[in-house]
């Protein structure tokens, strides 16, 4: 193909695609534009349920949280997005600090979601616990609290993912709030000294490593644990047969929870639909869906769930720390991890 024809063909195809690309917000139809950094297959069913109940179609873009935040920032006042959903309090706090969220005023959300899981512009809709996973046979007294992971008794026995992952930063932020910065840094140093191997992989990899005997203790988010428990693969259930799950800090402040939540954007073209959507996420039905579909814990106490894995993990005492502290301390947590050598 000759170069001019090549260019013409390319431009024609581009024009066709450009015209074919979906224009946001056709007038006749009620629609909600969602930017989501949650990418769970079960969320689709949840959004479909919202559409069935309200007639509002959910149009979404799933991406990484920080990039989506930049997109919202760049798009400015004319941006198409109504709601930003993400995991991790730090990102939600950042969106609030940047003034991207509109104030969240809803009697229903205030009634249903506990105060420490809400902020003026956003709310948490589900939580996940950061639990300790032990190899069966290891003395449980060695790892009752997060603090124990830094004690010399566990030297060479601990597996953990990168310190820069939001789940570990969230834990560090909570520890800073409870113990102060100096003691948290000391804790991180102790943890690094105990590592069986350099941090790598995800939470599920750490659980598998414990089961395989590469290490004895690991940190993992509860929904990965529950997913392995509910898996229909024999090898996954075998992994869980070799480990015990420990709820840390039950004798004192409770297990650390990181959150997933969202808020309505200041530039939202459909603020009413956005509020209806967030209120739907706090409904008993949606809350049960977070638990049953994605193994997260509901934030609404009255929600009735049917998840055998969550029930088997049993009741626990949760850290009642205000989510604002989690989002405030993240950068500090990263810096002290860097100083401690937690990669």
């Amino acid at each position, binding site marked *: *193909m*000759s*170069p*001019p024809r*090549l260019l013409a063909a*390319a431009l024609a*195809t*581009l024009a066709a*695609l*450009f015209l*074919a*690309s*979906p224009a*946001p*917000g056709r007038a006749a139809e009620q629609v909600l*534009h969602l930017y989501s950094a949650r*990418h*769970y*297959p079960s969320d689709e069913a949840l959004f479909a349920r919202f559409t069935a109940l309200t007639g509002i179609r959910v*149009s*979404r*873009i*799933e*991406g*990484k949280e*920080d*990039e*989506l935040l*930049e*997109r919202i920032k*760049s*798009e400015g006042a*004319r*941006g*198409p997005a109504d709601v930003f959903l993400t995991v991790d309090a*730090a990102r939600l706090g*950042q969106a609030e600090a940047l003034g991207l969220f509109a104030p969240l005023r809803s009697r229903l959300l205030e009634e249903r979601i506990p105060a420490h899981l809400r902020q003026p512009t956003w709310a948490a809709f589900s939580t996940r616990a950061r639990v300790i996973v032990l190899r069966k046979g290891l003395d449980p007294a060695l790892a009752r609290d997060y603090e124990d992971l830094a004690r010399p008794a566990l030297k060479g026995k601990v597996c953990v993912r*990168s310190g*820069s992952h939001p789940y570990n*930063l969230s834990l560090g932020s909570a520890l800073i709030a409870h113990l102060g910065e100096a003691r948290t840094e000391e804790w991180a140093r102790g943890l690094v000294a105990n590592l069986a*191997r*350099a*941090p*790598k*992989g995800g939470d*599920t*990899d750490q659980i*598998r*490593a414990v*089961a*395989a005997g*590469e290490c004895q203790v690991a940190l993992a988010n509860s929904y990965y644990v529950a997913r392995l428990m509910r898996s229909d*693969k024999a090898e996954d259930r075998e992994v869980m047969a070799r480990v015990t799950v420990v709820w840390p800090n039950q004798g004192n402040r409770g297990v650390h929870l990181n959150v997933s939540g969202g808020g309505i954007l200041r530039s939202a073209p459909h603020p009413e639909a956005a509020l209806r959507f967030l209120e739907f996420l706090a409904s008993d039905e949606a809350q049960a869906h977070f638990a049953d579909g994605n193994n997260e814990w509901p934030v609404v106490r009255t929600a009735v769930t049917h998840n055998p894995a969550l029930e088997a993990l049993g009741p626990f005492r949760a850290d009642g720390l205000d989510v604002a502290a989690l989002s405030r301390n*993240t*950068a500090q947590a*990263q*810096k002290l991890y*860097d*100083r401690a050598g937690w*990669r």
Partner: protein
Amino acid sequence: MPAGAERRRGPAALRGAATAVGALVAAPVLTVCAAVLAPEGGETWRHLASTVLPDYVASTAWLCLAVGMGTTVVGTGTAWLVTMHEFPGRRAFEWALVMPLAFPAYVLAYAYTDLLQFSGPVQGWLRAAGWERPLPDVRSLGGAAAMFVAVLYPYVYLLARSAFLEHASGTTEVARSLGLGPWPAFLRVSLPLARPAVAAGAGLALMETLADYGTVAYFGVQTFTTGIYRAWFSLGDRVASAQLATALLGAVLLLLALERLGRGRARFHDATGRRRPGSPGRLRGWRAAGAAAACGLPLAVGFAVPAAVLLRLALAHAGTLPPGRFLRLAGNSFSLAAVTALLAVALSLLLAYAARASRSRWAAALNRVAGLGYATPGSVIAVGVLVPVTRLDAWLAGAIEGATGARPGLVLTGGIAALVYAYLVRFLAVSLHAVEAALARITPRMDDAARSLGAGPGETLRRVHAPLLRRGLLTAALLVFVDVMKELPATLVMRPFDFDTLATTVFALASDERLGEAAGAALAIVAAGLVPLVIVSRQIARERRPAGAAQGAPALGAVEVP
């Protein structure tokens, strides 16, 4: 129009168009670099420099050294074997050796981790057989380098093979007839002549290595890009992260400049102008077996083994994606990749040709900056694209509102055109390198001959260069196509509402630690990339055949499978 007028107007129009395109493609890179002027960011720099940055720089340097040497040796070695020798399986290897290119490096990383980790099947089996010592960990710096070499050597292979084919007939045969043995002829004649192609290929491999985050993050290897993202994601300082990215780009520019400087004033044209393929030397016995093994090993490591691992996972998790949805995802990926590939080749041709015609340093420099998008970590360049696009969009919307009172919202952002623009910014370097490498082999004397026969620059391009460039253009289109299929960060953040591709699906599942479920879509990326890869690769292989057959073939011959 009289030929003289066209000759005067042609280059000026060409230069203008090239400058406009170059500036457009360079704009996002410059947006990122503008952060250098910002006063903030200092505190983050100090923190990183006093804690982790020295390690990041060291591991990045080691990684680049290993990947640069690995891709050069594997790519040049296999290209030399299949072009200049005859051994069992050579014909199949010649097109199959590009296949690893269809694998995203991060997918290869998942596959080998699944296979080789402590809790994986290989080590479990070894332990069961009584082998107690653990294998070296694949999730390490060395492992990451191996992954990159395995998927990126085809860049060097493709470009080096083209170069060897060009020179096979003339120079190399002359060298042999003058009494040089096969090895000295390779080392002293063919290899130096192929240098621009090998350097271009290795340069692309290194740029892709520097921009990678998915593979190194999964392996826990901390590179300079880790630092860029640490500043942004964990410390919330995007200015410092853009400044770090600029430092990285500065290092890339320096390396590119050094390579150019090293070439000095050397030219790499084949002055004979003959394009008759040479007669490959037949290898026998252990030499033939060795050659087959040397070509088989990279193919096994970069393609067969990971494909088998993914296939096993995909079969175990069959039914994750319903067929209808799967086809839609593949269709989206495929059309984006095809459009971008066409545009990228057309624009590269424009840029490369303008730089060649004007012979000005300025045009060449602009092309280098336009190509920097490829060495920039994906999310950084995606945000660099967002900034100018949304500004233009806001301006457009304001103008439309002022003129008509209608409220159009943002027209460009979140459209396919903006996404394709982002791809061009990222991948123009790939096609530009390939087109420039091809153009470098056409002698200025051919231009002079054409011009003296009365052809204008346009006609020279069409009737003299285009047929000679076809192989380079096909290679360029192919490389961009495959890269777009694999691209993730820009696709994630720039795509329209409710628009998913194979790569975004793999990401969504893999980031939720559902690697098994992601295997099917990952395999589909590879399969979809393979189709054009094999067609183009076979087409290039066919052009070895003597005379007429390929030269006289119709333009669409590229899609005929014999």
